């Protein structure tokens, strides 16, 4: 459905997007993951024809966005980072305007009503957009992307500004939409992309640093081989004993909490040392109060993906 090859965007000497290629198939939810300024929005703006690419190609349903923009744009619903809302219009006027703008053929009243039901904005339908809360503005933005029921949805950080309950609702909605649309969404929140997407593309400094399915990537990134453990007892002795467990490569004390010590324990990839660790600690009578897989922050992921495993992982997450 979406084919992108060697797409680049240069602003003078700065390469905002540098030769990225990927495909998204029908009924697939593709997640763009990357820190601010990684090139996510620029890529999306190129896919939707808002800005042109310096080089490379983007095909939407086989139609080149630069060569036949009007035909390609008919198939796209786009929610930009900042919802493009006319603040002086009511939700009703605005959605009707979008309906006309997209030259939509579906029955007007029922189609708009369906969309409003889907994103739950029925009860603000007659209100002026200016007076809506950020969460509702975001939903109206999502609603305008859905007008005309385009087969491709491109959503730039769709859950920004929503409260936790709304985030869950929108995620559920996106998953539902993903069944019969091709969805590309961007986020800088790992867990969000993991929760919603079938396939994840990690972008950093305009380049793709990882392109994989959700499970493969999250296994790779948050494998069981890095643990944080809160253990009570003499820290030096604990460290010595932990290192003695087979497969452990590193044990570092990172924190002290109420007389217990937090350790970061790294083992060889593919090994699971949790049981051995339990026995070792039980043997020296040092109770394990907490044991969990170390979740990686986005910075860690980039460090890891861009520098390889050997570069190690920063301790930022654990300091929290």
């Amino acid at each position, binding site marked *: 459905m979406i084919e992108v090859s060697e797409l680049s965007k240069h602003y003078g000497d700065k390469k905002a997007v540098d030769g990225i290629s990927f495909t998204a198939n029908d009924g697939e939810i593709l997640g763009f993951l990357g820190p601010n300024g990684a090139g996510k929005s620029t890529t999306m703006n190129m896919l939707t024809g808002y800005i042109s690419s310096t080089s490379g190609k983007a095909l939407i349903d086989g139609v080149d966005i630069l060569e036949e923009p009007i035909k390609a744009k008919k198939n796209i619903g786009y929610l930009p980072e900042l919802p493009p809302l006319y603040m002086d219009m009511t939700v009703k006027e605005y959605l009707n305007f979008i309906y*006309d703008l997209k*030259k939509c053929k579906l029955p007007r009243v029922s189609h708009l009503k369906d969309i409003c039901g889907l994103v739950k904005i029925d009860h603000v339908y007659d209100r002026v957009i200016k007076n809506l809360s950020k969460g509702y503005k975001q939903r109206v933005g999502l609603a305008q992307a859905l007008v005309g029921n385009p087969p491709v949805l491109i959503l730039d950080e769709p859950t920004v500004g929503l409260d936790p309950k709304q985030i869950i609702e929108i995620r559920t909605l996106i998953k539902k939409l993903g069944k019969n649309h091709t969805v590309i969404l961007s986020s800088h929140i790992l867990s969000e992309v993991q929760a919603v997407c079938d396939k994840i593309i990690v972008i950093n400094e305009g380049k793709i640093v990882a392109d994989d399915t959700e499970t493969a990537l999250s296994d790779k990134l948050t494998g069981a081989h890095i643990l944080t453990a809160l253990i009570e007892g003499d820290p030096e002795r604990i460290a010595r004993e932990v290192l003695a467990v087979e497969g452990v490569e590193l044990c570092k004390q990172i924190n002290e909490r109420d007389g217990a010590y937090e350790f970061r324990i790294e083992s060889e990839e593919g090994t699971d040392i949790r049981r051995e660790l339990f026995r070792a600690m039980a043997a020296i009578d040092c109770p394990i109060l907490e044991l969990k897989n170390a979740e990686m922050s986005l910075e860690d992921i980039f460090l890891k993906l861009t520098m390889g495993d050997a570069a190690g992982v920063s301790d930022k997450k654990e300091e929290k």
Partner: protein
Amino acid sequence: MGAIFRREVLSYFTSPIGYIFLAAFYAFSAVFFTNSSLMNGSTEMTGMFGQLMIILVVLIPILTMRTMSEDKKTKTDQCLLTAPVSLGGIVAGKFLAALLVFTCAVAVTVVYAIIIAGFAKTGAGVDWLVIIGNVVGLELFGASFIAVGIFCSSLTENQVVAAVISFISILALSMLSIVGGLISWEPAQELLASLSFYERYSGFTYGMFDLSNVLFFISASVIFLFFTVRVLEKRRWS
């Protein structure tokens, strides 16, 4: 294009801009009309049409200042530029909306003409052809100013800056003949005079309906709208 046209017309009247423009135009034209026609007991309206040109230099920038700049500032251009509409369609929709508001303003001059016709003594009737020529001239003159204003508005995302640039540009385009008068070289004088919006419009107020003047204003409008499309295009490619 139709959707953008309707939205723009609506937005002129949900914000004060449309009302301010119309009120100012009606007020000034009424003063000029009273002064030049009614007070003199004349059926001539050219005096009013000549004076209207001056206030358009100020009023048109107010009408067009937000057309393109506002979209850029509030990022609503993302919605227009990613919709299946051509750039020409976007610019044309905005131009026609401004032109409609302007036409509502110009329409009042027809009312004045009817008033005069009602009071005119037999034999000193109203010369309708001259008035129609004047109204068409004013409409064309305004249309070209609107195109200039929209172009200026596309250059910036600040409405005030857009209004100031438009004002200066429109003033400069009107005054080209005066600048020409300062140059002693005759071909340059003639060239500048022929490009002067004021000189072109004066023809209409003298009661001359010259087709070359009509074409001049139409081409000026088309050229500035085309420039606007190029500005939008360039922004995508930069």
